[in-house]
């Protein structure tokens, strides 16, 4: 299957199955409804084969270019069938499992994620560990019988309230060991000792959670990568977060910009602001498109993806700044479903320069790794 064949086949299939794939609810749906709908879309696309292309056969995929994964998310977002924030978690978590989990574990688990049978979350950030990931302190100790016991707290863990599994970073070295003393695990969320407390976010959703670990047993078979080798797991995952996922998000932003352009009241759009936002979306598309091709060619993605991440943040905020200038009354005082959606999108867009490594951290990476400006101390 090549991309052209995939595109033509998928487009046709999406046309034919629009009714089954389209959410039955409006923009005022609950998060539970949205998660249910996401599972439905993943199951239907998996069972029809589309979701399996671009993933290795040893984890239930059908092989082929990763461009097909990029296109599937793009097509679903462009048709407004998914919200890419929750859909694209797969693009971050599945590659980590494929690379670092024992092969039998990856073969057993990854298909459940792809098919939407399970939701997974990513336990990285902690109350004392935001941008400085290497300082995390959630502790994993050997239990004396070959396994591990985890105690500590995670925060900003998206979808933890729905998740069956968690890719978790823990401290296994001394507190001073920094990024050399971190180990990654694949933890069952129903293990006794795990408590999840959702956090209400600014846009009215329980977007993320606090997760508490109280002496939680984890078998060594659930370790991802080497003991004290968790930093490699985290670093390996971040470029994925900035490739396919960003491409999906770009398709979503394009769609929302098109919606604004189609529905804005006459005279509300400022030509210069509109032109600049459209150019920005085009430039992001161009940048991310080149990244998709580099990934598909097997190139190892690195610090240059910080440019993609910075550009996405800038673009998402440019689009929603335009929304806020063009339909301010909908964002501020509208209570109809469309207004609620514009408001939610606007509020959520403020996080685009914060999550997944803040814009400041990305600039630090650009300065050190791409501009060779040396250390910042």
């Amino acid at each position, binding site marked *: 299957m090549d991309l052209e064949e995939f595109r033509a086949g998928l487009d046709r299939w999406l046309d034919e199955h629009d009714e089954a794939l389209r959410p039955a609810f409006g923009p005022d749906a609950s998060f539970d409804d949205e998660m249910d709908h996401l599972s439905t879309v993943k199951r239907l696309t998996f069972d029809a084969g589309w979701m399996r292309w671009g993933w290795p056969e040893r984890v239930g995929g059908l092989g082929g270019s990763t461009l097909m994964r990029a296109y599937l998310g793009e097509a679903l977002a462009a048709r407004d069938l998914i919200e890419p924030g929750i859909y694209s978690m797969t693009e971050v978590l599945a590659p980590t499992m494929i690379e670092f989990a024992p092969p039998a574990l990856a073969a057993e688990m990854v298909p459940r994620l792809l098919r939407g049978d399970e939701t997974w979350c990513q336990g990285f950030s902690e109350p004392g560990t935001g941008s400085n990931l290497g300082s995390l302190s959630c502790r994993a100790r050997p239990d004396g019988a070959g396994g591990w016991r985890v105690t500590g707290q995670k925060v900003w863990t998206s979808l933890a309230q729905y998740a069956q599994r968690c890719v978790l970073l823990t401290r296994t070295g001394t507190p001073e060991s920094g990024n050399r003393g971190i180990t990654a695990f694949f933890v069952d969320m129903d293990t006794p000792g795990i408590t999840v407390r959702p956090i209400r976010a600014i846009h009215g959703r329980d977007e993320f959670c606090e997760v508490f670990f109280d002496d939680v047993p984890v078998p060594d078979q659930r370790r991802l990568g080497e003991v004290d080798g968790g930093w490699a797991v985290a670093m390996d995952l971040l470029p994925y977060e900035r490739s396919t996922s960003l491409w999906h998000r770009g398709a979503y932003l394009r769609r929302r910009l098109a919606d604004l352009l189609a529905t804005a009241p006459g005279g509300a759009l400022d030509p210069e602001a509109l032109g600049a936002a459209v150019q*920005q979306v085009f430039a992001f598309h161009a940048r991310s498109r080149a990244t998709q091709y580099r990934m598909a060619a097997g190139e190892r993605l690195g610090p240059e993806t910080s440019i993609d991440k910075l550009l996405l943040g800038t673009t998402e905020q440019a689009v929603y700044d335009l929304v806020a200038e063009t339909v301010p009354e909908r964002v501020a005082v509208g209570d109809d479903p469309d207004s609620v959606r514009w408001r939610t999108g606007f509020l959520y867009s403020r996080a685009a320069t914060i999550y997944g490594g803040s814009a400041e951290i990305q600039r*630090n990476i650009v300065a050190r790794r791409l501009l060779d400006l040396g250390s910042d101390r």
Partner: protein
Amino acid sequence: MDAATRALLTGSLRQALRAGDPRAVDAALAEVGWAEALQEEGPAAVALLFTEQGAANAASGALDDVLTAATGRPGGAFVLPGYGLSAPPAETTAGGRLRARGLGTSRLAHADTAVVVTGAAAHWVSTKDLRVTPVTGVDPELRLVTVEADGLEPSESVPVDWPALRAAGQLAVAYELVAASRAMLELACDHARSRVQFGRPIASFQAVRHRLADSLLAIETAAAAVSVAAERDAADPLLAGMAKAVAGRGARTAARHCQQVLAGIGFTAEHAFHRHLRRILTLDGLLGTARGLTRELGTKLIRTRRVPPAPPL
């Protein structure tokens, strides 16, 4: 173009751009086969030459070559729209004669013929019939001229598509803007690494690092847009206009940050920075400024109410 050909061509173009004043550069480019490369390789040759030209802060009549080649009849000079304008520089007046108001590159001073474009056709005229005035402006090294002519009688006219011509020229200028921006960033990074204050290189201060990072972001954003807009042999007018606007805006962003980092030395005529600043201020206005093109795009989209299609994966 394979890698070996590309390296060879890049080397000889780079050499030619060092020949001296724009007329000498034109002669050197002719010698190394630039016109043939343009004919055979099209957009790939444009990318190479204008990138080298921007990096070297060189001036030539290569933009005239790109634009005349796009009419199907390469050679001579090409009359550009006035600074900041993107409409055809000429119009037909009573009696079928032409009236032209625009800009010329250094080429116009030593070419025998020039192409002036009206709404639907390219017309060949003698440069003797044009009133040509040198422009000093912010970038005297570029040797631009203003062109005025009334009652012109073309020796020949052929129908052309102005948006397509303009797009070819816009992409060339956009490559040059991106390369000039990279040159400014390189100067600023060199300075930040070597300039010591408070006992450490100023490159170690986050306020400085973030300005330089933002410059690279602006440059890579523009480079990506230009590269996608130039993918096809015939430039798409809409994509080329967007790419030129993004490149012009990116160059101004990079210039602002880099000049601040260069501080005092960047304010002198002894340091190379000012040459690039002068160049990008001028290039931004050739075939439309970032601001003008952006407004033009927005106005059009408000009419059509559709986001323009982007090249698929």
